[in-house]
């Protein structure tokens, strides 16, 4: 009844339609089918092996060439260490004073979360998405949605967990969003990734004061990231006459190109100031 060509054309159209429907469903939000863990568990041990081998080889290479300058550096570092000990002492005094003041004001301590250190063993194969694979998983207490931080600031969020490995979506990823505050003016917005090396701070009203160089910190209101963690600084503020929001470009403090170790926050304390003692 139907020619072979006709059946082929109808078949291809049906295939494209099914394809688009499936993609539209999976694009709405990050969906998992449980099988992801198998793929991660299958590939990650090899990624770990290659990464460790590369770092080991790199270390030997560097150490060989750096040996010549080590003696001179040692002298310089000793001097710097003495200075650092002095500075550290001052900081300890400040920290003690800070702790006393916090107790007086009834604020919660914002740096008491339990963290797990993890090593980055693989990066996203695509140029359009920004995720990494880390060498800690469910066996280490990780679950989906946990925040991942660095001493410099927020790195991302755990989005997939297998027994010994996890996938982390970096704040640079186009699907990432972090509720944030401009530290100086307390202007609120949402940090969104662009899958480049910069982010945007969306939904900042034009009446709020935002300047280039301002530090942006997490607000804690998204229920994922602890309050007050550094994210980045304002690199550019663009004003549009017809828009009620600022267009704010943020440069993250974390250098994602050199990401090697990260900290996963296992238990985020809620920082609702109104519920304080």
């Amino acid at each position: 009844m139907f020619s072979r060509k006709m059946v082929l054309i109808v078949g291809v159209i049906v295939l494209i339609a099914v394809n688009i429907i499936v993609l539209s469903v999976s694009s709405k939000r990050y969906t998992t089918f449980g099988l992801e863990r198998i793929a991660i568990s299958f590939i990650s041990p090899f990624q770990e092996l290659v990464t460790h081998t590369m770092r080991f080889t790199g270390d030997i290479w560097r150490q060989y060439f750096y040996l010549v300058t080590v003696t001179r550096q040692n002298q310089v570092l000793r001097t710097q260490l003495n200075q650092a000990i002095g500075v550290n002492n001052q900081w300890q005094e400040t920290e003690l004073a800070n702790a006393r003041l916090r107790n007086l004001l009834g604020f919660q301590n914002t740096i008491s979360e339990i963290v797990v250190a993890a090593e980055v063993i693989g990066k996203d194969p695509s140029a359009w998405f920004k995720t990494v694979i880390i060498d800690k998983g469910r066996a280490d207490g990780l679950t989906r949605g946990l925040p991942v931080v660095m001493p410099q600031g927020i790195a991302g969020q755990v989005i997939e967990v297998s027994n010994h490995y996890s996938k982390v979506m970096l704040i640079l990823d186009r699907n990432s969003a972090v509720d944030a505050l401009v530290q100086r003016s307390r202007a609120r917005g949402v940090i969104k990734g662009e899958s480049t090396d910069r982010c945007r701070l969306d939904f900042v009203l034009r009446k709020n004061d935002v300047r280039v160089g301002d530090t942006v910190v997490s607000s804690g209101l998204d229920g994922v990231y602890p309050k007050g963690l550094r994210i980045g600084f304002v690199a550019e503020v663009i004003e549009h006459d017809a828009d009620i929001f600022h267009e704010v470009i943020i440069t993250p403090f974390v250098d994602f190109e050199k990401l090697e170790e990260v900290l996963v926050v296992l238990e985020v304390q809620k920082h609702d100031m109104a519920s304080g003692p």
Partner: protein
Amino acid sequence: MSYCFNIAICLILVILQTTVIPNLSLPGRFYDLLIPFIVYLGLSRPVREGLLFVCFLGFIMDNLSGSPFGLYLTSYFWLFSGVKGITQLLQVRKRVFVITFIVASGVLAENLIFLSSFAIFSPEQQLGGDAFKIVAVQVMWALLTGAVLLIIFRKTHSWLDAGFRALYARQSD
């Protein structure tokens, strides 16, 4: 033997792509190394074998990447189908220039599928200003190295095939 070879190549390429390539100081982002392999499957392997590995690779890459599930699978499937379609029309297996063009077109097609999916399924998210540059650099890399990789796959496979045939022949004697 072909299946073992394909699995080994898949594994090597995925590991290279997620651990070694990101740490190299290359100008711009390198293209998806699996595209030459998909093109190789389309040009040189039977449909059933090729399709199996297209699905396998799509599944693995969808899970290792932060992409919506099915995006890599879609790209690889249509790329594979496209290459199979071209081979029905043209005799391209041995022509290096045409192979280079096909690999570069594959890289371009994958990026266009990705960008189209962003535009269709999340139009509210703006695309970075350097999207064009990313695609252009990847296509340039593909033009320079794509055909070489494809030839390496083909030569290694035929070399291993000949080796195993000789081994079986010796054992049967």
